């Protein structure tokens, strides 16, 4: 790969990595694995970088790799690791509060079902776009989405009219 292509890759990462981390966090459920997931997706993308950028904006390609990597990534964490996240106690911007109930609920979904939820309701992709990205039929997306909503309905506390969205400051930290 030429230095120009490497530089283009660096620019792309600078522009898109934060968004990829957000999606990966919802897919993986914790910061460490989200970062690993994004790194693997970027590595796979870099292997085909010249071909990817020749087709236009590489964002969709990377997102697809991110999701397919996630759906195949049945890690040993499920039974052997416990995710403990701590934030540094130092002054800085407010940190959004972690929604443990939501993250737990997402973790109970099979990887593909979780991906459908994230793509449909976080990325706001249509059923057709989700199907295209995941390489499956629209019917499969619909079914997975229905099953996911049925499960989440049982797992998530119903929204009260005055229930605040969990974006308030809990602990100081830095981005």
């Amino acid at each position: 790969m030429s230095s120009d292509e490497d530089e283009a890759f660096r620019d792309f990462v600078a522009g898109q990595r934060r968004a990829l981390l957000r999606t990966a966090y919802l897919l993986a459920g914790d910061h460490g694995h989200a970062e690993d997931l994004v790194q693997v997706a970027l590595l796979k993308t870099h292997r085909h970088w010249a071909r990817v950028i020749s087709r236009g904006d590489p964002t969709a390609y990377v997102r697809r790799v991110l999701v397919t990597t996630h759906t195949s990534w049945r890690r040993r964490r499920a039974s052997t690791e416990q995710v403990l996240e701590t934030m540094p106690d130092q002054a800085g911007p407010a940190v959004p509060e972690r929604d443990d109930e939501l993250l737990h609920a997402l973790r109970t979904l099979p990887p593909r079902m979780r991906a459908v939820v994230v793509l449909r309701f976080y990325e706001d992709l249509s059923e057709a776009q989700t199907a295209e990205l995941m390489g499956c039929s629209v019917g499969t997306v619909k079914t997975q989405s229905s099953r996911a909503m049925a499960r989440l309905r049982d797992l998530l506390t119903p929204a009260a009219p005055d229930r605040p969205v969990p974006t308030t400051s809990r602990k100081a930290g830095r981005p």
Partner: protein
Amino acid sequence: MTADSTLENDLRARLHAAAEHGAWHPGMGDDAAVDDVLERRRVQRRTRVAVLSAAACTALVVAMVPLLLGATGPAGQTATPSAVPPSSDGVTDESIQAQLPVDLLSAPTRGSLAGDAAYVEAVRTADWTDLSGGFAQVADRRVAFVGDVPGGRWALVVGQTGGRLAHQWFTGPPGAAAGELVADRSGVESEGDAFVYVLPTGSHQAPGSPPGAGTELTEVDELTVVVVAQPGDVVQVSDRVVVEADGAVSRDFVPAPGGDGVAVTQLPGTVLDTSEGSSSAVFRLVRDGTAGPVRTLGLSDPLVLTDPPPLDLRPLRPGSSDVSPDLVRFAAVEVARHVGLPADQLDPQVLWSGPVSAGDGQISVAMVALRMPSGALVVNTAYAVMTPGTSARDTPLSAVGGCGAETHAETAVVDDLAVLSRCSVPGDLGARETVYVGSAPPVAQEMRGAGTYGSDEASWVVRLDQGHGSLAGGEYDTASFIGPGYALLDQPVAVDPADVLLGGPR
């Protein structure tokens, strides 16, 4: 605003808030991330060059191996353990292995090609082009398994990296040379104390195909399964739940072929749920005579999955009306996925179906009876929330759920069954409405029972219309169906199919 849209809107808000939390982690910076990618790519390229160089020397190595190794075991037997390679990151083997769920670094290479030293070495040094299982330097790798499997030739390479065990599966066609094995697959599964790989038999990814490329998966004849655990472990596999002729439910675990902590086996493709990639099959390890927890066996590769076709069936009982074929299929598949057979091979029949009042709206309900190979019957009920202006037949599965399942002995006749299912239906603002739906032969004129309603004890009687009726609210475990010359007393309310069918973790 409907309950569905409320849940979706709430979910959207919570996902965005949670994602913001994810973005605030003080992890690796963007430049460091790029540097890491570029460094890994340089390592990969160096490894590829090394493999090519090794290939050029293959003829010489093959000629010399018998002389260098002396009497090695024939293919199909376990090879002699070799020294654990030193870690390139300075961490001692002991400290690493103490943290590893599976101590494969000191275990011998297993599999039918374990005795082929040249082949093993070529696999050990092969390029790791997929890193979803982590990455280990070549010097830190061992071949845990290499051998012929039904429909191909597979290998599992493991390696120490920091305190973790990285691993890479390789696959190739039958008789493939080491250089023909492909590591591009993303599918990796590790269950803590075993490494598992499950693919449709004969499935191979073409070298150089892009990541995520899959195959449309509409029908799978057989699955190839490889489990690599500790030497000495016995791998037991159960391919499905069995419903006996008397309605009793069990699983049979049998030792899988392979031995010494490795299983190389096949499962019928019918065990696969093609809509999720999960299967009815499970396995467990027996170590020192003690059976470990039951683990699922699902597809390891992100193949393109498809739903089975809808079941467009006419309901049997008078007073029924047609519901969506997708709902009928949903009810049938919820049972079929446990017993490992396609729903259409279980003689599905719709006992009763139609719309039922629930809260301020309606649900469409389907009671589906399936005949097990033993002759036993399993009845499963499912609902879909109806949207105003649509019929039960046209109701989409935007909000769907189960109302419970029950088993009956082979002597049971579908027409004679009396079923009481409990549907927990989403209402406004996420509240749940409990609706009991009963169906019995038309001779039954009422169903009655007792239990609690809120904090009060309550008894109830529902007048049936052609054997059908429903009841809102309360907590009841049994019901009796009564008519002229007819009495079915204390019939248990149906429960979750996963509980009825001992499906194990999914």
